[in-house]
Protein backbone atom coordinates (compact mmCIF):
# COMPACT_ATOMS: atom_id res chain seq x y z
CA UNK A 1 0.00 0.00 0.00
CA UNK A 2 2.75 2.42 0.91
CA UNK A 3 4.20 2.07 -2.61
CA UNK A 4 0.83 2.89 -4.16
CA UNK A 5 0.41 5.74 -1.73
CA UNK A 6 3.83 7.07 -2.72
CA UNK A 7 3.02 6.82 -6.44
CA UNK A 8 -0.34 8.58 -6.08
CA UNK A 9 0.68 11.30 -3.65
CA UNK A 10 4.27 11.99 -4.57
CA UNK A 11 4.41 11.31 -8.31
CA UNK A 12 0.97 11.45 -9.92
CA UNK A 13 -0.04 14.56 -8.01
CA UNK A 14 3.13 16.36 -9.07
CA UNK A 15 2.22 18.07 -12.32
CA UNK A 16 5.78 18.35 -13.73
CA UNK A 17 6.45 14.63 -13.16
CA UNK A 18 3.05 13.67 -14.53
CA UNK A 19 3.58 15.67 -17.72
CA UNK A 20 7.01 14.03 -17.95
CA UNK A 21 5.45 10.56 -17.62
CA UNK A 22 2.95 11.33 -20.40
CA UNK A 23 5.79 12.46 -22.67
CA UNK A 24 7.77 9.33 -21.68
CA UNK A 25 4.87 7.06 -22.70
CA UNK A 26 4.56 8.90 -26.03
CA UNK A 27 8.30 8.66 -26.74
CA UNK A 28 8.35 4.94 -25.87
CA UNK A 29 5.28 4.34 -28.08
CA UNK A 30 7.17 5.94 -30.98
CA UNK A 31 10.17 3.66 -30.24
CA UNK A 32 12.58 6.56 -29.86
CA UNK A 33 16.18 5.79 -28.87
CA UNK A 34 17.01 5.67 -25.16
CA UNK A 35 18.95 8.94 -25.31
CA UNK A 36 16.09 10.71 -27.14
CA UNK A 37 13.59 9.32 -24.64
CA UNK A 38 15.57 10.39 -21.58
CA UNK A 39 16.44 13.87 -22.87
CA UNK A 40 12.89 14.38 -24.18
CA UNK A 41 11.31 13.46 -20.85
CA UNK A 42 13.71 15.66 -18.92
CA UNK A 43 13.08 18.62 -21.24
CA UNK A 44 9.34 18.30 -20.75
CA UNK A 45 9.69 18.30 -16.95
CA UNK A 46 12.09 21.25 -16.99
CA UNK A 47 9.82 23.03 -19.50
CA UNK A 48 6.91 22.66 -17.12
CA UNK A 49 8.95 24.09 -14.25
CA UNK A 50 10.03 27.01 -16.44
CA UNK A 51 6.34 27.65 -17.20
CA UNK A 52 5.56 27.79 -13.50
CA UNK A 53 8.48 30.14 -12.95
CA UNK A 54 7.03 32.41 -15.64
CA UNK A 55 3.70 32.35 -13.82
CA UNK A 56 5.38 33.81 -10.73
CA UNK A 57 6.84 36.68 -12.77
CA UNK A 58 3.48 37.42 -14.41
CA UNK A 59 1.47 37.30 -11.20
CA UNK A 60 3.84 39.72 -9.50
CA UNK A 61 2.99 42.30 -12.16
CA UNK A 62 -0.73 41.57 -12.37
CA UNK A 63 -1.37 42.17 -8.68
CA UNK A 64 -0.41 45.88 -8.69
CA UNK A 65 -2.11 46.24 -12.10
CA UNK A 66 -5.39 44.90 -10.72
CA UNK A 67 -5.12 47.06 -7.61
CA UNK A 68 -4.51 50.15 -9.72
CA UNK A 69 -7.58 49.56 -11.93
CA UNK A 70 -9.68 48.71 -8.89
CA UNK A 71 -8.80 51.76 -6.81
CA UNK A 72 -8.54 54.18 -9.72
CA UNK A 73 -11.53 53.16 -11.83
CA UNK A 74 -13.52 50.92 -9.45
CA UNK A 75 -13.54 48.21 -12.11
CA UNK A 76 -12.26 44.67 -12.36
CA UNK A 77 -9.66 45.02 -15.12
CA UNK A 78 -8.84 41.92 -17.14
CA UNK A 79 -6.29 41.50 -19.95
CA UNK A 80 -7.09 38.19 -21.63
CA UNK A 81 -3.79 36.33 -22.12
CA UNK A 82 -4.02 32.55 -22.47
CA UNK A 83 -0.39 31.95 -21.53
CA UNK A 84 -0.72 33.90 -18.28
CA UNK A 85 -3.96 32.32 -16.99
CA UNK A 86 -2.83 28.83 -17.97
CA UNK A 87 0.48 29.22 -16.18
CA UNK A 88 -1.22 30.67 -13.09
CA UNK A 89 -3.64 27.73 -12.93
CA UNK A 90 -0.96 25.02 -13.03
CA UNK A 91 -0.09 25.35 -9.35
CA UNK A 92 -3.57 24.20 -8.29
CA UNK A 93 -4.75 22.31 -11.37
CA UNK A 94 -1.53 21.08 -13.04
CA UNK A 95 -1.98 17.34 -12.42
CA UNK A 96 -5.63 17.37 -13.54
CA UNK A 97 -4.71 19.39 -16.62
CA UNK A 98 -2.07 16.85 -17.65
CA UNK A 99 -4.46 13.89 -17.30
CA UNK A 100 -7.28 15.69 -19.14
CA UNK A 101 -4.91 16.60 -21.98
CA UNK A 102 -3.74 12.99 -22.39
CA UNK A 103 -7.28 11.56 -22.15
CA UNK A 104 -8.64 14.24 -24.48
CA UNK A 105 -6.06 13.32 -27.10
CA UNK A 106 -7.03 9.63 -26.81
CA UNK A 107 -10.75 10.50 -27.15
CA UNK A 108 -9.95 12.67 -30.21
CA UNK A 109 -8.12 9.76 -31.87
CA UNK A 110 -10.95 7.31 -31.08
CA UNK A 111 -13.59 9.72 -32.43
CA UNK A 112 -11.55 10.34 -35.59
CA UNK A 113 -11.33 6.58 -36.02
CA UNK A 114 -15.04 5.75 -35.52
CA UNK A 115 -16.92 8.83 -36.78
CA UNK A 116 -16.81 10.46 -40.23
CA UNK A 117 -15.27 13.57 -38.62
CA UNK A 118 -11.67 12.50 -39.18
CA UNK A 119 -9.69 15.37 -37.70
CA UNK A 120 -6.67 15.12 -35.41
CA UNK A 121 -6.15 18.30 -33.40
CA UNK A 122 -2.41 18.99 -33.48
CA UNK A 123 -2.25 22.52 -32.05
CA UNK A 124 -0.63 21.36 -28.83
CA UNK A 125 -0.77 24.64 -26.93
CA UNK A 126 -4.52 24.92 -27.47
CA UNK A 127 -5.07 21.34 -26.27
CA UNK A 128 -3.08 22.30 -23.19
CA UNK A 129 -5.02 25.54 -22.64
CA UNK A 130 -8.41 23.86 -23.16
CA UNK A 131 -7.40 21.07 -20.74
CA UNK A 132 -6.51 23.77 -18.19
CA UNK A 133 -9.83 25.55 -18.69
CA UNK A 134 -11.79 22.31 -18.18
CA UNK A 135 -9.76 21.39 -15.08
CA UNK A 136 -10.39 24.84 -13.57
CA UNK A 137 -14.13 25.01 -14.40
CA UNK A 138 -14.93 21.42 -13.35
CA UNK A 139 -12.72 21.62 -10.26
CA UNK A 140 -14.16 24.99 -9.18
CA UNK A 141 -17.69 23.54 -9.51
CA UNK A 142 -16.76 20.72 -7.12
CA UNK A 143 -16.26 17.93 -9.67
CA UNK A 144 -12.83 16.58 -8.71
CA UNK A 145 -10.56 13.55 -8.96
CA UNK A 146 -11.33 10.73 -11.36
CA UNK A 147 -14.70 12.21 -12.43
CA UNK A 148 -13.00 15.49 -13.30
CA UNK A 149 -10.43 13.68 -15.45
CA UNK A 150 -12.98 11.50 -17.28
CA UNK A 151 -15.49 14.31 -17.95
CA UNK A 152 -12.69 16.70 -18.90
CA UNK A 153 -11.21 14.11 -21.27
CA UNK A 154 -14.56 13.47 -22.98
CA UNK A 155 -15.20 17.20 -23.39
CA UNK A 156 -11.69 17.94 -24.67
CA UNK A 157 -11.72 15.04 -27.14
CA UNK A 158 -15.15 16.07 -28.42
CA UNK A 159 -14.38 19.75 -28.87
CA UNK A 160 -11.10 18.97 -30.64
CA UNK A 161 -12.98 16.76 -33.10
CA UNK A 162 -16.06 18.92 -33.74
CA UNK A 163 -14.53 22.40 -34.13
CA UNK A 164 -12.21 21.45 -37.03
CA UNK A 165 -15.23 19.67 -38.59
CA UNK A 166 -17.54 22.68 -38.27
CA UNK A 167 -14.92 25.07 -39.71
CA UNK A 168 -13.84 22.76 -42.50
CA UNK A 169 -16.43 23.70 -45.16
CA UNK A 170 -15.06 27.29 -44.94
CA UNK A 171 -11.48 26.14 -44.48
CA UNK A 172 -11.60 24.37 -47.84
CA UNK A 173 -12.51 27.71 -49.38
CA UNK A 174 -9.56 29.36 -47.63
CA UNK A 175 -6.79 26.91 -48.49
CA UNK A 176 -8.27 25.27 -51.58
CA UNK A 177 -8.20 21.72 -50.20
CA UNK A 178 -4.52 21.89 -49.29
CA UNK A 179 -4.65 18.78 -47.14
CA UNK A 180 -5.02 20.27 -43.69
CA UNK A 181 -7.84 21.46 -41.49
CA UNK A 182 -7.96 24.24 -38.90
CA UNK A 183 -7.30 23.29 -35.28
CA UNK A 184 -7.65 26.51 -33.29
CA UNK A 185 -9.96 27.24 -30.40
CA UNK A 186 -11.37 30.46 -31.76
CA UNK A 187 -13.36 28.52 -34.33
CA UNK A 188 -16.68 30.04 -33.24
CA UNK A 189 -15.23 33.41 -34.27
CA UNK A 190 -14.15 32.05 -37.67
CA UNK A 191 -17.49 30.38 -38.38
CA UNK A 192 -19.25 33.61 -37.40
CA UNK A 193 -16.96 35.69 -39.59
CA UNK A 194 -17.37 33.36 -42.57
CA UNK A 195 -21.17 33.32 -42.16
CA UNK A 196 -21.25 37.13 -41.95
CA UNK A 197 -19.02 37.32 -45.02
CA UNK A 198 -21.49 35.15 -46.89
CA UNK A 199 -24.39 37.38 -45.82
CA UNK A 200 -22.89 40.81 -46.50
CA UNK A 201 -20.12 40.22 -49.01
CA UNK A 202 -21.93 40.04 -52.30
CA UNK A 203 -19.73 41.45 -55.10
CA UNK A 204 -17.13 42.67 -52.61
CA UNK A 205 -13.62 42.34 -54.06
CA UNK A 206 -10.91 40.33 -52.33
CA UNK A 207 -8.62 41.99 -49.80
CA UNK A 208 -5.64 40.61 -51.65
CA UNK A 209 -5.86 43.36 -54.27
CA UNK A 210 -5.06 45.93 -51.58
CA UNK A 211 -1.37 46.75 -51.30
CA UNK A 212 -0.01 46.55 -47.75
CA UNK A 213 3.51 47.37 -46.68
CA UNK A 214 5.56 44.19 -46.28
CA UNK A 215 7.07 45.81 -43.19
CA UNK A 216 4.05 44.84 -41.06
CA UNK A 217 5.55 41.45 -40.20
CA UNK A 218 6.49 42.80 -36.75
CA UNK A 219 2.80 42.55 -35.86
CA UNK A 220 3.30 38.83 -35.55
CA UNK A 221 6.20 39.20 -33.11
CA UNK A 222 4.22 38.16 -30.06
CA UNK A 223 6.80 39.27 -27.49
CA UNK A 224 6.96 42.79 -28.93
CA UNK A 225 3.18 42.99 -29.30
CA UNK A 226 2.44 41.74 -25.79
CA UNK A 227 4.91 44.17 -24.28
CA UNK A 228 3.75 47.17 -26.33
CA UNK A 229 0.12 46.44 -25.40
CA UNK A 230 0.95 46.22 -21.72
CA UNK A 231 3.02 49.42 -21.84
CA UNK A 232 0.12 51.33 -23.42
CA UNK A 233 -2.47 49.83 -21.07
CA UNK A 234 -0.41 50.25 -17.89
CA UNK A 235 0.81 53.77 -18.55
CA UNK A 236 -2.60 55.05 -19.73
CA UNK A 237 -4.38 53.45 -16.78
CA UNK A 238 -1.74 54.74 -14.34
CA UNK A 239 -2.28 58.29 -15.59
CA UNK A 240 -6.08 57.92 -15.32
CA UNK A 241 -5.98 56.20 -11.93
CA UNK A 242 -3.40 58.57 -10.45
CA UNK A 243 -0.38 58.12 -8.19
CA UNK A 244 -2.40 57.24 -5.07
CA UNK A 245 -3.73 54.03 -6.67
CA UNK A 246 -0.24 52.56 -6.77
CA UNK A 247 1.10 54.18 -3.58
CA UNK A 248 1.39 50.94 -1.63
CA UNK A 249 3.54 49.35 -4.37
CA UNK A 250 5.82 52.10 -5.63
CA UNK A 251 7.73 52.70 -2.37
CA UNK A 252 8.25 56.32 -3.23
CA UNK A 253 9.39 55.89 -6.84
CA UNK A 254 7.57 57.54 -9.73
CA UNK A 255 4.30 55.73 -10.42
CA UNK A 256 4.44 56.06 -14.21
CA UNK A 257 7.95 54.61 -14.33
CA UNK A 258 6.80 51.90 -11.95
CA UNK A 259 3.93 50.86 -14.23
CA UNK A 260 6.24 50.98 -17.26
CA UNK A 261 8.60 48.54 -15.51
CA UNK A 262 5.68 46.32 -14.58
CA UNK A 263 4.55 46.23 -18.21
CA UNK A 264 8.04 45.24 -19.38
CA UNK A 265 8.21 42.58 -16.67
CA UNK A 266 4.85 41.19 -17.81
CA UNK A 267 6.31 40.78 -21.31
CA UNK A 268 9.32 39.01 -19.80
CA UNK A 269 7.05 36.66 -17.83
CA UNK A 270 5.04 35.73 -20.92
CA UNK A 271 8.29 35.08 -22.81
CA UNK A 272 9.41 32.70 -20.05
CA UNK A 273 6.04 30.91 -20.12
CA UNK A 274 6.23 30.57 -23.90
CA UNK A 275 9.68 29.03 -23.61
CA UNK A 276 8.33 26.46 -21.16
CA UNK A 277 5.32 25.66 -23.35
CA UNK A 278 7.60 25.30 -26.37
CA UNK A 279 9.81 22.77 -24.53
CA UNK A 280 6.75 20.72 -23.55
CA UNK A 281 5.20 20.79 -27.02
CA UNK A 282 8.48 19.94 -28.78
CA UNK A 283 8.22 16.41 -27.39
CA UNK A 284 4.47 15.91 -26.99
CA UNK A 285 3.11 17.11 -30.35
CA UNK A 286 5.30 14.83 -32.53
CA UNK A 287 4.35 11.94 -30.22
CA UNK A 288 0.65 12.77 -30.63
CA UNK A 289 1.07 13.05 -34.40
CA UNK A 290 2.98 9.76 -34.65
CA UNK A 291 0.42 7.85 -32.60
CA UNK A 292 -2.56 9.40 -34.42
CA UNK A 293 -1.10 8.62 -37.86
CA UNK A 294 -0.78 4.95 -36.94
CA UNK A 295 -4.36 4.66 -35.67
CA UNK A 296 -6.19 6.96 -38.13
CA UNK A 297 -3.97 7.17 -41.23
CA UNK A 298 -6.67 8.89 -43.32
CA UNK A 299 -7.32 11.73 -40.85
CA UNK A 300 -6.75 15.37 -41.71
CA UNK A 301 -4.33 17.18 -39.38
CA UNK A 302 -6.04 20.20 -37.75
CA UNK A 303 -3.40 22.91 -37.48
CA UNK A 304 -2.76 26.29 -35.85
CA UNK A 305 -4.39 29.39 -37.38
CA UNK A 306 -1.32 31.09 -38.93
CA UNK A 307 -1.16 28.21 -41.42
CA UNK A 308 -4.04 30.06 -43.16
CA UNK A 309 -2.14 33.39 -43.33
CA UNK A 310 -0.15 32.66 -46.53
CA UNK A 311 -3.46 32.21 -48.39
CA UNK A 312 -4.62 35.81 -47.73
CA UNK A 313 -1.90 37.89 -46.02
CA UNK A 314 -3.69 41.22 -46.51
CA UNK A 315 -6.92 39.88 -45.01
CA UNK A 316 -4.88 39.16 -41.86
CA UNK A 317 -4.00 42.85 -41.45
CA UNK A 318 -7.53 44.00 -42.33
CA UNK A 319 -8.99 41.44 -39.90
CA UNK A 320 -6.59 42.42 -37.10
CA UNK A 321 -7.53 46.11 -37.33
CA UNK A 322 -11.28 45.41 -37.59
CA UNK A 323 -11.16 42.96 -34.69
CA UNK A 324 -9.19 45.40 -32.52
CA UNK A 325 -11.79 48.10 -33.21
CA UNK A 326 -14.48 45.55 -32.27
CA UNK A 327 -12.56 44.86 -29.04
CA UNK A 328 -12.33 48.56 -28.16
CA UNK A 329 -16.04 49.10 -28.89
CA UNK A 330 -16.80 45.99 -26.81
CA UNK A 331 -14.69 47.28 -23.91
CA UNK A 332 -16.81 50.42 -23.64
CA UNK A 333 -19.97 48.30 -23.63
CA UNK A 334 -18.77 46.28 -20.63
CA UNK A 335 -19.18 48.99 -18.03
CA UNK A 336 -22.87 49.74 -18.75
CA UNK A 337 -23.53 45.97 -18.87
CA UNK A 338 -22.02 45.61 -15.39
CA UNK A 339 -19.30 43.22 -16.56
CA UNK A 340 -15.56 43.17 -15.92
CA UNK A 341 -13.46 45.56 -18.02
CA UNK A 342 -11.95 43.35 -20.74
CA UNK A 343 -8.99 45.27 -22.14
CA UNK A 344 -8.22 44.18 -25.72
CA UNK A 345 -4.83 42.50 -26.12
CA UNK A 346 -2.99 42.86 -29.41
CA UNK A 347 -1.97 39.21 -29.54
CA UNK A 348 -5.44 37.60 -29.46
CA UNK A 349 -6.78 40.26 -31.82
CA UNK A 350 -3.91 39.68 -34.21
CA UNK A 351 -4.14 35.90 -34.37
CA UNK A 352 -7.93 35.53 -33.93
CA UNK A 353 -8.89 38.72 -35.75
CA UNK A 354 -6.40 38.04 -38.54
CA UNK A 355 -7.79 34.55 -39.08
CA UNK A 356 -11.37 35.85 -38.88
CA UNK A 357 -10.34 38.30 -41.63
CA UNK A 358 -9.06 35.42 -43.77
CA UNK A 359 -12.37 33.56 -43.37
CA UNK A 360 -14.53 36.63 -43.90
CA UNK A 361 -12.57 37.43 -47.05
CA UNK A 362 -12.95 33.87 -48.35
CA UNK A 363 -16.75 34.12 -48.26
CA UNK A 364 -17.34 37.86 -48.60
CA UNK A 365 -14.29 39.77 -49.83
CA UNK A 366 -13.23 43.04 -48.18
CA UNK A 367 -16.62 43.71 -46.67
CA UNK A 368 -16.76 40.18 -45.27
CA UNK A 369 -13.25 40.47 -43.81
CA UNK A 370 -13.98 43.81 -42.12
CA UNK A 371 -17.44 43.12 -40.71
CA UNK A 372 -16.70 39.49 -39.88
CA UNK A 373 -13.52 40.32 -37.99
CA UNK A 374 -15.22 43.26 -36.24
CA UNK A 375 -17.87 40.89 -34.87
CA UNK A 376 -15.10 38.47 -33.91
CA UNK A 377 -13.55 41.32 -31.90
CA UNK A 378 -16.84 41.86 -30.06
CA UNK A 379 -17.12 38.10 -29.39
CA UNK A 380 -13.65 37.77 -27.86
CA UNK A 381 -14.35 40.75 -25.62
CA UNK A 382 -17.83 39.92 -24.34
CA UNK A 383 -17.38 36.13 -23.98
CA UNK A 384 -14.29 36.31 -21.69
CA UNK A 385 -16.27 38.56 -19.32
CA UNK A 386 -19.12 36.03 -19.19
CA UNK A 387 -16.66 33.19 -18.55
CA UNK A 388 -15.21 34.75 -15.38
CA UNK A 389 -17.91 33.63 -12.97
CA UNK A 390 -17.28 29.97 -13.87
CA UNK A 391 -13.57 30.18 -13.14
CA UNK A 392 -13.77 29.92 -9.35
CA UNK A 393 -10.97 31.81 -7.59
CA UNK A 394 -9.36 32.48 -10.99
CA UNK A 395 -12.42 34.53 -11.93
CA UNK A 396 -10.92 37.27 -9.76
CA UNK A 397 -7.56 37.18 -11.53
CA UNK A 398 -6.62 40.05 -13.84
CA UNK A 399 -6.18 37.80 -16.82
CA UNK A 400 -8.28 35.09 -18.46
CA UNK A 401 -8.72 33.03 -21.62
CA UNK A 402 -8.85 35.13 -24.79
CA UNK A 403 -10.37 32.96 -27.54
CA UNK A 404 -14.06 32.27 -28.16
CA UNK A 405 -14.10 28.46 -27.90
CA UNK A 406 -12.46 28.49 -24.47
CA UNK A 407 -15.18 30.87 -23.35
CA UNK A 408 -18.24 29.02 -24.65
CA UNK A 409 -16.84 25.67 -23.53
CA UNK A 410 -16.17 27.08 -20.06
CA UNK A 411 -19.65 28.62 -19.81
CA UNK A 412 -21.29 25.40 -21.05
CA UNK A 413 -19.22 23.17 -18.75
CA UNK A 414 -19.85 25.46 -15.78
CA UNK A 415 -23.59 25.30 -16.32
CA UNK A 416 -23.55 21.51 -16.77
CA UNK A 417 -21.54 21.13 -13.55
CA UNK A 418 -24.41 22.67 -11.58
CA UNK A 419 -26.28 19.37 -11.98
CA UNK A 420 -23.81 17.44 -9.82
CA UNK A 421 -21.58 14.55 -10.85
CA UNK A 422 -24.32 12.16 -12.07
CA UNK A 423 -26.21 14.91 -13.88
CA UNK A 424 -22.96 16.11 -15.47
CA UNK A 425 -22.19 12.63 -16.80
CA UNK A 426 -25.65 12.30 -18.38
CA UNK A 427 -25.68 15.81 -19.85
CA UNK A 428 -22.12 15.64 -21.16
CA UNK A 429 -22.71 12.31 -22.91
CA UNK A 430 -25.94 13.61 -24.50
CA UNK A 431 -24.47 16.98 -25.56
CA UNK A 432 -21.27 15.44 -26.91
CA UNK A 433 -23.28 12.85 -28.89
CA UNK A 434 -25.42 15.57 -30.46
CA UNK A 435 -22.39 17.71 -31.31
CA UNK A 436 -20.60 14.72 -32.83
CA UNK A 437 -23.64 13.78 -34.89
CA UNK A 438 -23.79 17.35 -36.20
CA UNK A 439 -20.04 17.36 -36.94
CA UNK A 440 -20.34 14.03 -38.77
CA UNK A 441 -23.28 15.34 -40.79
CA UNK A 442 -21.41 18.50 -41.79
CA UNK A 443 -18.34 16.45 -42.77
CA UNK A 444 -20.24 13.90 -44.86
CA UNK A 445 -22.26 16.58 -46.66
CA UNK A 446 -19.13 18.62 -47.28
CA UNK A 447 -17.22 15.61 -48.64
CA UNK A 448 -19.96 14.97 -51.18
CA UNK A 449 -19.28 18.34 -52.80
CA UNK A 450 -17.41 18.16 -56.15
CA UNK A 451 -14.01 19.05 -54.66
CA UNK A 452 -12.97 15.76 -53.11
CA UNK A 453 -11.06 15.49 -49.88
CA UNK A 454 -7.48 14.43 -50.25
CA UNK A 455 -6.09 13.14 -47.03
CA UNK A 456 -2.43 13.76 -46.43
CA UNK A 457 0.06 12.46 -43.95
CA UNK A 458 1.95 15.42 -42.65
Amino acid at each position, binding site marked *: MSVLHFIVNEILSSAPLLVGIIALIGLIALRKSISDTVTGTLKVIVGFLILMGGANIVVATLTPFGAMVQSGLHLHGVVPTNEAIVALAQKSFGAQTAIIMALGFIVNVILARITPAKFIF*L*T*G*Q*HLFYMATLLAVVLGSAGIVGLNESILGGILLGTVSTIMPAFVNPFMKKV*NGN*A*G*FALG*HFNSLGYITSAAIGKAVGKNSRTTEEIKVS*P*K*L*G*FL*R*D*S*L*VMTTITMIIICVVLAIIAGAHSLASYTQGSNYIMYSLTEALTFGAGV*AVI*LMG*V*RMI*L*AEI*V*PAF*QGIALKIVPNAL*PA*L*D*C*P*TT*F*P*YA*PTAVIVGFLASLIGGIVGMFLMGPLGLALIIPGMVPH*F*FDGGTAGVFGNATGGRRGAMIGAFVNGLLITVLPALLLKFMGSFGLANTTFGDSDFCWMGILTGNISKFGVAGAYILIVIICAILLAAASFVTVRNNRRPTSDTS*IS*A
Partner: protein
Amino acid sequence: MKILAVCGMGLGSSMVLRMTIESVLKELGVNASVRTSDIGAVKAESADIIVTSSEFATLLADKKVPILTIKNYVDKQEMKEKLLSVLPKEGE
Protein backbone atom coordinates in the same frame (compact mmCIF):
# COMPACT_ATOMS: atom_id res chain seq x y z
CA MET B 1 23.36 20.89 -39.47
CA LYS B 2 20.82 23.06 -37.66
CA ILE B 3 17.48 24.05 -39.15
CA LEU B 4 15.18 26.55 -37.43
CA ALA B 5 11.42 26.58 -38.04
CA VAL B 6 10.10 30.06 -37.21
CA CYS B 7 6.63 31.51 -36.58
CA GLY B 8 5.09 34.31 -34.51
CA MET B 9 4.76 32.53 -31.19
CA GLY B 10 7.07 29.59 -31.84
CA LEU B 11 4.34 27.20 -30.71
CA GLY B 12 1.92 25.99 -33.37
CA SER B 13 2.84 26.78 -36.96
CA SER B 14 6.58 26.34 -36.43
CA MET B 15 5.83 22.93 -34.92
CA VAL B 16 3.92 21.98 -38.08
CA LEU B 17 6.89 23.15 -40.17
CA ARG B 18 9.25 21.15 -37.98
CA MET B 19 7.27 17.95 -38.44
CA THR B 20 7.11 18.42 -42.23
CA ILE B 21 10.85 19.21 -42.41
CA GLU B 22 11.72 16.16 -40.31
CA SER B 23 9.66 13.81 -42.43
CA VAL B 24 11.24 15.18 -45.64
CA LEU B 25 14.75 14.92 -44.17
CA LYS B 26 14.08 11.32 -43.19
CA GLU B 27 12.99 10.58 -46.75
CA LEU B 28 16.15 12.21 -48.10
CA GLY B 29 18.36 10.46 -45.55
CA VAL B 30 19.73 13.79 -44.28
CA ASN B 31 20.73 14.15 -40.66
CA ALA B 32 19.90 17.52 -39.10
CA SER B 33 18.50 18.91 -35.89
CA VAL B 34 15.28 20.86 -36.40
CA ARG B 35 14.13 23.26 -33.71
CA THR B 36 11.28 25.73 -33.37
CA SER B 37 11.63 29.40 -32.52
CA ASP B 38 9.63 32.62 -32.53
CA ILE B 39 10.37 35.65 -34.65
CA GLY B 40 11.53 37.64 -31.60
CA ALA B 41 14.06 35.11 -30.36
CA VAL B 42 15.40 33.96 -33.70
CA LYS B 43 17.77 36.92 -34.04
CA ALA B 44 19.82 35.55 -31.16
CA GLU B 45 19.93 32.00 -32.48
CA SER B 46 22.31 30.36 -34.89
CA ALA B 47 21.14 28.15 -37.73
CA ASP B 48 22.26 26.84 -41.11
CA ILE B 49 18.81 27.11 -42.71
CA ILE B 50 15.69 29.01 -41.59
CA VAL B 51 12.24 27.88 -42.69
CA THR B 52 9.28 30.27 -42.24
CA SER B 53 6.41 31.97 -44.07
CA SER B 54 6.78 34.90 -46.47
CA GLU B 55 5.75 37.71 -44.07
CA PHE B 56 8.80 36.98 -41.89
CA ALA B 57 11.34 36.73 -44.67
CA THR B 58 11.93 40.50 -44.79
CA LEU B 59 12.41 40.65 -41.01
CA LEU B 60 15.07 37.97 -41.22
CA ALA B 61 16.96 39.51 -44.13
CA ASP B 62 20.03 40.27 -41.99
CA LYS B 63 20.48 36.61 -41.12
CA LYS B 64 23.25 35.41 -43.43
CA VAL B 65 21.76 31.97 -44.04
CA PRO B 66 19.29 30.61 -46.61
CA ILE B 67 15.68 31.48 -45.69
CA LEU B 68 12.98 29.25 -47.16
CA THR B 69 9.45 30.65 -47.32
CA ILE B 70 6.72 28.03 -47.27
CA LYS B 71 3.13 28.51 -48.40
CA ASN B 72 1.54 25.16 -47.52
CA TYR B 73 2.95 24.05 -44.17
CA VAL B 74 2.14 20.35 -44.70
CA ASP B 75 3.07 20.02 -48.38
CA LYS B 76 6.06 17.66 -48.39
CA GLN B 77 6.69 18.21 -52.11
CA GLU B 78 7.03 21.98 -51.68
CA MET B 79 9.26 21.49 -48.64
CA LYS B 80 11.42 18.94 -50.44
CA GLU B 81 12.00 21.16 -53.49
CA LYS B 82 12.88 24.15 -51.36
CA LEU B 83 15.15 22.18 -49.02
CA LEU B 84 16.95 20.48 -51.91
CA SER B 85 17.72 23.88 -53.43
CA VAL B 86 19.79 24.85 -50.38
CA LEU B 87 21.01 21.55 -48.90
CA PRO B 88 24.73 20.93 -49.55
CA LYS B 89 25.18 18.49 -52.41
CA GLU B 90 26.70 15.04 -51.75
CA GLY B 91 30.46 15.01 -51.56
CA GLU B 92 30.87 18.72 -50.93
